[in-house]
């Protein structure tokens, strides 16, 4: 609990401490260091997801890596929402979550059907759309 208190910049002496201190947006506007760290982590997450998508052969793990890319994007959204003191960033993350869930459902359904055809999850098994 004390760690949350550390993040306040505009510590106002007139602030009345409630028995259950709640975090409010204005008071927990983060410092640039946190934002920078968050942005770095988001870039790294995105890149890790991309690399994983391109290197893993298991189709389900490939889709999991796309979810990782979503994570990176969501983190970047939140960070920039913080910078702009706007809650739209978080609202958009809700939408990202929605889309990710829908996509995951359908993708997994398709992967299962594909697995039934070839009895393997190898993505190299589906290479028929190639030049003869």
């Amino acid at each position, binding site marked *: 609990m004390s760690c949350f208190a550390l993040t306040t910049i505009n510590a106002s002496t007139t602030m009345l401490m409630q028995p259950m201190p709640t975090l409010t947006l204005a008071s927990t506007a983060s410092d640039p260091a946190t934002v920078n760290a968050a942005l770095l982590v988001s870039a790294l997450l995105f890149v890790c997801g991309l690399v994983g998508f391109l290197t893993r052969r298991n189709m389900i793990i490939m889709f999991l890596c796309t979810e990782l890319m979503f994570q990176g994007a969501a983190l970047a959204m939140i960070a920039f929402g913080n910078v702009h*003191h706007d809650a739209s960033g978080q609202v958009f993350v809700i939408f990202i979550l929605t889309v990710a869930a829908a996509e995951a459902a359908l993708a997994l359904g398709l992967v299962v059907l594909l697995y039934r055809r070839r009895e393997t999850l190898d993505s190299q098994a589906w290479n028929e759309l190639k030049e003869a």
Partner: protein
Amino acid sequence: MDFATLSHASSIPAAFLLAADDTGVMTSPAAALTIACAISAAGLALIMQPGRQGIRTAGTVLALAGFAMLMVEVLARATPHGSDGSMPPVFPVVFGFITLFGAVRMITHPKPVFAALYFVLVVIATAGLFLLLGAEFMAFSLIIVYAGAILITYMFVLMLAQQSPVAGVGDAWYDRLPREALSAIVVGFVILATLSNAFFSPQAQSDRADTFERTELSGTVNAWQTLDAMPKLALASAQAAYVESLKSLKSSNDGATTSATTAAKIVALVPDAQGNRVRTRGADAFVMAQFADGTTIELALPVSALPTNSRHVGVELVSKFPAGLEIAGVVLLMALFGAVILARKQIELGEDERRELAGMRRFTIEGESGGTGAQR
């Protein structure tokens, strides 16, 4: 730039960074970031090689070094004009490290179920970062939805479609070997370098700082307006603020506490010309509280009366993005339909079944063979 405060979080390679002088000009800032990215990419490339453990260990070390360099660099740029004496940002670094560890482990682990579990770790660490950034609603909803629903679905499917490890061989071959790791790493490196330079260049950094200062006021005003969108909560907050203000007055006057129930009851808040009940003056908010007897006082609302993040996000979602909400619902509905259709099984009905469904007489008598039974 004081490195001493940061040195405990940095490793030795940090000393090689940034020949900065006091004028604030960094020699080739882009190069520093790019080099760090390159080191990280190299480390990752080494980690991804199957085979000897030694290579992977070396890769791990390299990747850690690169990550550390990046983090130091980034944090250094966050406060270019000297730190303001607050504590070094431990938690972002810790959470960031956990996130990266989980991500790297996820993309390199040969067993798919473990990869999914590491992804759960990533989600939790990311939720921690969300908390640090003040988005607690999103943090927990992330954990609930992602780790609790999507990842569980992934695990189900993994269990269904997983080929059991063959004795003596281990995991499925296509899980152990990466596919063209090198070109993927190169692509990743390019994107990482571009992104990091774009995010952390001095120009962008100063832009962010400016925006941060510029939008502070409007953000606070926005937050007060969301409170205005919740009339009952506004009333309750006003009442609590009134009680507290009476208490502080009384305590400053005679030190004795008065029961809260003796405070008068606010019945209504008077809206102003635009219809706002919660009015703002700069960053402060106040209300015109109306009592039962009709008298009104101006009541300042304390900072604690600001709505919580969840409430804020909720009001924003409904008031500013109603269309998105509806469309998100439609998207989920479509996903539902799609999943149902994909999961259908084709059932071949026999002759008898079909005739029965059509209300006609069966062909064969019960128990006979032929013409009955659903074929799959």
